[in-house]
């Protein structure tokens, strides 16, 4: 039963990774950029939720939606101000810019409010259920439910709506999409908006679940979520979800084995192994560079 418990904890952690990973994967799919600042969007989302709950007295769902909206706008701003001009430059220049933007956001936040952590208020009723000997709190069930619903909505947007179709077209071939009359700029912005909204939601969920947030909180989950995206096959939406869950479970198992200090190393080892042996990820197709 101990293992079942760990499995459940792993899925909870994994759902947070998955939500962040979705943004990485969508952005990479469409403009081939590792958006390093995505972890900071997650952090901004978490803080927005915190202020909404602690100072304005909003409930969990209003705070969640507010934070998603704020992050969507924030994500689009980052794209328009920093990344848009880089579309024709080298990928390395874009990556350096993304790293710069990421650090800039971190330290501007620290500059404004200090580096001290904040304790997330308890907004969700917390009762424990005992199912087959596994302790499951109502909180984590709700969180899991919210994540899954968001992923389903995303799947719907991508496959059933006009903007989703445009997103897929642009990621397949931006030039051809442009010729077909798709507004590439707006489509890219929409991708950033949706991905960032999911990161914002992940931020609020993270806060509620782990109760402690701070300005540098985005770095590690950001990197982990990126690893999850690579694991599932970057650019592939279901891949990011599966990658997130796998990584969450692996990490909780490593911790459960009493190796919690090695937990972060485990994620990086997975990353390197995947990059070396199957760089296209679990669900990716191998492609070779055109000569």
């Amino acid at each position, binding site marked *: 039963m101990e293992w079942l418990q760990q499995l459940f904890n792993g899925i909870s952690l994994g759902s947070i990774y998955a939500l962040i990973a979705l943004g990485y994967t969508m952005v990479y799919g469409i403009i081939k950029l*590792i958006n390093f600042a995505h972890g900071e969007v997650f952090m901004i989302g978490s803080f927005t939720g915190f202020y909404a709950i602690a100072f304005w007295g909003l409930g969990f769902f209003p705070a969640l939606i507010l934070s998603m909206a704020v992050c969507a706008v924030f994500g689009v701003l980052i794209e328009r101000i920093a990344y848009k001009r880089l579309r024709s430059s080298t990928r390395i220049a874009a990556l350096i810019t993304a790293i710069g933007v990421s650090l800039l956001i971190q330290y501007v936040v620290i500059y404004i409010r200090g580096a001290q952590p904040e304790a997330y208020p308890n907004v969700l009723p917390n009762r424990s259920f005992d199912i087959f000997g596994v302790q499951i709190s109502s909180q984590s069930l709700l969180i899991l439910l919210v994540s899954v619903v968001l992923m389903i909505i995303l799947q719907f947007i991508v496959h059933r709506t006009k903007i989703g179709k445009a997103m897929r077209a642009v990621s397949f071939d931006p030039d051809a999409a442009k010729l077909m009359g798709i507004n590439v700029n707006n489509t890219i912005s929409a991708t950033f908006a949706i991905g960032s909204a999911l990161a914002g939601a992940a931020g609020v969920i993270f806060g509620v679940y782990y109760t402690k947030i701070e300005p540098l909180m985005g770095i590690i989950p950001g990197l982990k979520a990126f690893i999850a995206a690579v694991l599932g096959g970057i650019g592939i939406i279901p891949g990011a979800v599966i990658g997130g869950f796998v990584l969450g479970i692996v990490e909780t198992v490593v911790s459960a084995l009493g190796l919690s200090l090695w937990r972060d190393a485990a994620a990086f080892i997975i990353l390197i192994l995947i990059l070396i042996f199957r760089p296209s990820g679990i669900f990716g197709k191998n492609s070779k560079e055109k000569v």
Partner: protein
Amino acid sequence: MLKKVNTFWFSIVLAFVFYGIIQLLISTAMLNPFYTNTLIFICINIILAVSLHLVIGITGQFSIGHAGFLALGAYISAIMTMKLGMPFSVALIAGGIVAALAGLVVGVPSLRLRGDYLAIATLGFAEIIRIIFLNIDYVGGAAGMQVTHATTWTTSFLCLILTIVVIANFTNSRHGRACISIRENEIAADAMGINTTYYKVAAFVIGSFFAGIAGGLYAHNFYIIQPVNFGFLKSFDILIFVVLGGLGSLSGAVVSAILLTIVSTFLQGLPETRMIIYSLVLVMVMLYRPQGLMGTREITDYFGKWGRVKGGNQYGG
């Protein structure tokens, strides 16, 4: 060719005259310890910048985990002096060699990875190295390790000159041209008979060796080393030297390492401001002057003197 040799020795002599003047100022106490320390720090940072320049600027392998090699050099050299009682010089070399071996290990995946994927992998390697030290009680875990002060102006300047001479000489040879051709067009380089694997790994090994030396100097200048000193931010600090200087320009890396070390010395009490300035500079450079300060050129180009390091620049307009 004879002229080139002469100008080479001329530069070396000039460097040692500069060294002598500073040493004189130090030993006559005209230069206070604060300035001496800043000079040592500048030397260490130049070594780091130039060693990363070989990997990113010359060979085009985008590594953002240079702090990992710095950490290895720091810890290995500290173990040599503090635990095994070896002399400082042996410890420095040992740190360099172990870091070079790690460079070999990191260089190998670079055979299969390109661009941003390689970047993430190097970042992962650096984090793994850091986490390993964090988990080894022998070197103090998170609390870190006490190290005696052994780094002097003389040792750091010697290491600096060695680094620059080795990397400039490497670059100005058929080997350096091979590395640049990989940066410019890997497929064409391969088709021209360049063993791209060999040169990518060679660049990683040489770059890491000097990062390891810098680690030894760093450890023995600080009294204590902790895993937290070698995180991603440290890699970022080194990266910004190379990017700001101009990818592909050795003297650019040197100049920006000097400038930024001085700037950060002044901002020591304001770490957040420093990071905001650093990251703003990085973003602005990428958006408005992606070729960096020096672009494709070397300082020597302006004088037409010794050893134009034909680095070239991958972003040049």
